[in-house]
């Protein structure tokens, strides 16, 4: 009980200290709102636009999660192909690295032109494109670094490749997979918001941010950033919880 309380209290206190420091910094420097809004300025922004935050936040959230799920599916399949076949790995790796190196902000206008008006699709697509790379890489590394003895144990009994994959390769890759998923979660948010901000279409938290910018409502812009951070934290800890359930065995006992 004490341990659980600690696990919740410590990060909450840290966040409170950070907010207090932020408030103090703005007050101490006497910064006007258009330079930097203080946390106390954000409360009215949330009160005024609460309904918008809920509806826009939901749009950002579901499009991010959908993009992420697609990235998990595609990344896992791609990682399997590269993990099992040396030739495919040699062939696909440079292409993947090149694709990943392209700044996704430059992809936004192209995608927006390619699929004019299909805003949901475009946004999900961008969230997907930006987040599948770490998953594909981690799955392929997990599979290709499987010690041969693991295979031999089952192969010597006459097990099929599929059995070896389900019983050994897949579970053994899970810790790496979840490590990559934690990175991919935050990346997917970046993808969603890039689309929402760079190609405005009046949906998602990015649109709310954009309207804050056009109306010079600086507290609103900061309030959106904070809301995005909050959603990011929630999704991240959902992944952590899933990791505990499916790959908890990989965690070393303390001490």
């Amino acid at each position, binding site marked *: 009980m004490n341990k659980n309380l600690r696990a919740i209290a410590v990060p909450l206190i840290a966040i409170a200290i950070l907010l207090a420091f932020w408030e103090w910094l703005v007050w101490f420097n006497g910064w006007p709102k258009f330079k930097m809004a203080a946390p106390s300025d954000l409360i009215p922004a949330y009160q005024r636009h609460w309904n918008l935050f809920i509806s826009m936040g939901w749009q950002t959230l579901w499009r991010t999660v959908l993009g992420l799920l697609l990235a998990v599916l595609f990344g896992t399949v791609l990682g399997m192909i590269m993990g099992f076949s040396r030739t495919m790995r040699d062939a696909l790796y440079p292409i993947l690295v090149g694709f990943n190196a392209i700044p996704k902000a430059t992809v936004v206008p192209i995608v927006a032109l390619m699929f004019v008006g299909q805003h949901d699709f475009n946004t999900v697509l961008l969230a997907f494109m930006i987040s599948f790379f770490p998953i594909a890489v981690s799955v392929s590394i997990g599979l290709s670094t499987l010690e041969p003895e693991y295979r031999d144990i089952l192969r010597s009994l*006459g097990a099929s490749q599929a059995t070896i994959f389900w*019983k050994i390769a897949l579970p053994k890759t899970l810790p790496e997979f979840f490590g990559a998923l934690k990175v991919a979660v935050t990346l997917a948010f970046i993808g969603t918001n890039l689309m929402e901000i760079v190609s405005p279409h009046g949906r998602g938290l990015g649109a709310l941010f954009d309207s804050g910018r056009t109306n010079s409502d600086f507290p609103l812009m900061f309030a959106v950033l904070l809301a995005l951070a909050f959603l990011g934290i929630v999704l991240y800890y959902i992944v952590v919880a899933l990791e505990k359930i499916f790959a908890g065995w990989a965690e070393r006992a303390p001490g």
Partner: protein
Amino acid sequence: MTNLIEIKGVRHAYRTDAGPLPVLDGLEIAVPEGGFVAVVGPSGCGKSTLTRLIAGLMKPDHGEVWLHGERVKGPRATVGMAFQNPVLLEWRTILKNVLLPLEIVPSKLSKKQAEERARFLLSLVGLEGFEDKRPSELSGGMRQRASLCRALIHQPEVLILDEPFGALDAFTREDLWQTMHKVKEREPFTGVLITHDLRESIFLADQVVVLSGRPARTQHVLDIPSTGPRTLDDLYTPEAAEHLNILRHQIQIAQGRAAAEDSAT
């Protein structure tokens, strides 16, 4: 055919970028049912290739491998393997790890009987009470014991041990040697042990095969009488000293051949 394992005139080469690399050249080994053969030789002489041939994980270029009067053409469920790396699945408990082969090999045992058998094997190697622990909670020697139980759970005819005690400290290793004798008494098997340790070979095996340097052929076969070392004290008798002397001498010859070849190229 009286021998359970028969290896006749096996030659094998690995294909490398620099051309074929012969590893085995004229290998002859015969192990009677219930026998325990130890294979020693200079490092890199193809000992592990031998285990993969017996397990049916690969086919030799030339020659034949026979198991129980049948030519080995692929993997068969009548083989159990344990390696230097215990390769336990970290996400399974020790008991579930031991039961793994029964999920692949068809078995007459019911689920309950299988679990009972696993618990019996674990108690035989001294792992009673660790059934529900995870591999990461066990020491290296304990993991190797569990790995041994997994290799035996499906009652294999042949137990292949590829340097299973190589990474353990000397005291743990000697403990495990004694455990091996205990296990063989209760769970008879025909064994092939790959090892670097000459004392280990005469302690456990009734026949020691010395391989020459690469490419390996059968250089010498030493029979250890059944009255051979079966307790640690037996390792310090004049007979044991004599056996060790012969083997050390043979290894030197084997290494000499390898060294001569190295300087020639």
